[in-house]
């Protein structure tokens, strides 16, 4: 499902965000990406989602060769992904439920049907009583859960969740992780970055550790 071969990413000013990264992830796998701040986790996600091109190296995601992705293909590639951005990227002047329904509307689903399904997912992340509140008035943790619901509503092939529990207490974090692990049972591949080493330890999943842009560890807890 995800294949990275000798991937390098260098930003102007000789900032080596990724160095010689080799990662292979199969369908329905659940993988934690850990590493200190500035290690290159978000950079890796940006590249996997096709928002950025690697400086060198081969990159294949969900059957698309990202080195040769054309502008016309890009939207259809992105529809195979569900991304939780570290900064959420929600539409601030729209309500929680409208934000969650967006991926379905973009795929051409009817508005009413999309909102119906969105309210189901709002429930899954425990925000049923925040449905009609504009996301700018939601708390950080609530916004994070809206972002997560938006990333999984369309049953993507791959979920990329950048710090999905960064603003949540332990109980909420466990709930969210359960939800993400549940997603792998319906065939989705899930990648999660996190700083929370306790949470990672408890989960017994595959862990890829990155440090200074290099993979320093790849295996189970």
């Amino acid at each position, binding site marked *: 499902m995800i294949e990275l071969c000798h991937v390098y990413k260098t930003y102007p000013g000789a900032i080596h965000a990724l160095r010689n990264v080799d990662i292979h992830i199969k369908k329905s796998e659940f993988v934690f990406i850990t590493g200190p701040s500035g290690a290159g986790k978000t950079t890796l996600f940006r590249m996997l989602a096709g928002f950025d091109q690697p400086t060198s190296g081969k990159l294949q995601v969900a059957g698309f060769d990202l080195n040769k992705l054309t502008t016309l293909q890009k939207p259809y590639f992105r*529809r195979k992904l569900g991304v939780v951005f570290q900064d959420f*990227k929600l539409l601030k002047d729209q309500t929680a439920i409208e934000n969650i329904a967006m991926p379905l509307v973009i795929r051409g689903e009817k508005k009413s049907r999309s909102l119906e399904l969105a309210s189901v997912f709002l429930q899954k992340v425990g925000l049923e009583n925040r449905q009609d509140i504009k996301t700018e008035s939601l708390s950080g943790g609530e916004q994070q859960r809206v972002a997560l619901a938006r990333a999984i509503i369309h049953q993507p092939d791959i979920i990329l969740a950048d710090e999905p529990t960064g603003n949540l207490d332990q109980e909420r974090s466990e709930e969210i992780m359960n939800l993400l692990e549940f997603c792998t049972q319906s065939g989705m591949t899930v990648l999660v970055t996190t700083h929370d080493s306790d949470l990672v330890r408890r989960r017994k999943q595959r862990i890829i550790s990155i440090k200074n842009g290099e993979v320093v560890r790849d295996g189970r807890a």
Partner: protein
Amino acid sequence: MRSSWAIQMTSTIVLTFSLVLLGIIFSFIKSSRYAAMKSQQNVKLEVFFKEDLKPEIDFEWMNQIKSFPEILNISFLSQEQAKEEFKKMMISSFGSLTEEASLLSRLPSSVSIQFQEGVSAETKKIKVDEIVNLAKQITTYDGYVYQQDWANWLASFTIKAEKGMMFLGLFIFLIFFLIISNVIRSQVVHKQNEIEIRSFLGATIWQIEKPFIINSIFLGILSSLLAISFLVTGISFLKQNIQPRSDMISSEIILAPNLFETFFVMLVVVSISAWAARVCVRERVYL
């Protein structure tokens, strides 16, 4: 959002104004072309005589001319009739008649000769010489006026004016494009964040640009409809209030764009609007 409405309103006004200008240019070209065509068709030869012609004697001359196949119509204006015409024209132009007895008594009688349609200018010229030579045999002959020169001047003026106006028209379309671009560009900047998020979630470029294109087409149609209603009102007002001076300057020669032409211009306006929106969105959105 409120400032966006203000921008849309002001630009609608400017767009309407530029389209009204375009309509005026268009009507001007159409009218002068029509006037040139009419004057070319109605070119007349007028032969003047110091005294009224006597039908018994000059009957033959008139009949001879009438028998030419190139001649449509020949009419005689006596000195008395000429005076009446002159008085009428003075009154309609200046509102009153200053009695100039000396001037009135010197008005000649005239024979006005009209050619058939479709006779070439060269043939007309030959016929004019022929007729004038015949007229010179009449003792009271006083000279002639042939309007071909005026018609020629009007025709060449029309061609020049058309070129200039065409250039101006293109310039107006360019202005139109720039104004619409600015409106859409400000909207795109305003919604940059939303555009980015929608593209991250898999929206195609068409999905992203569609609302902007619809908006700019709406602006284009709104301003053309406004411009059309201004033009129609203006032209009918002009037609009602124009003072007919002669057959050259009458309300008949003011032509408004017809339905087909209006539709064509609107089609161009809509295409320009859509294209401007497309350009503006695409220059700022990177998928």
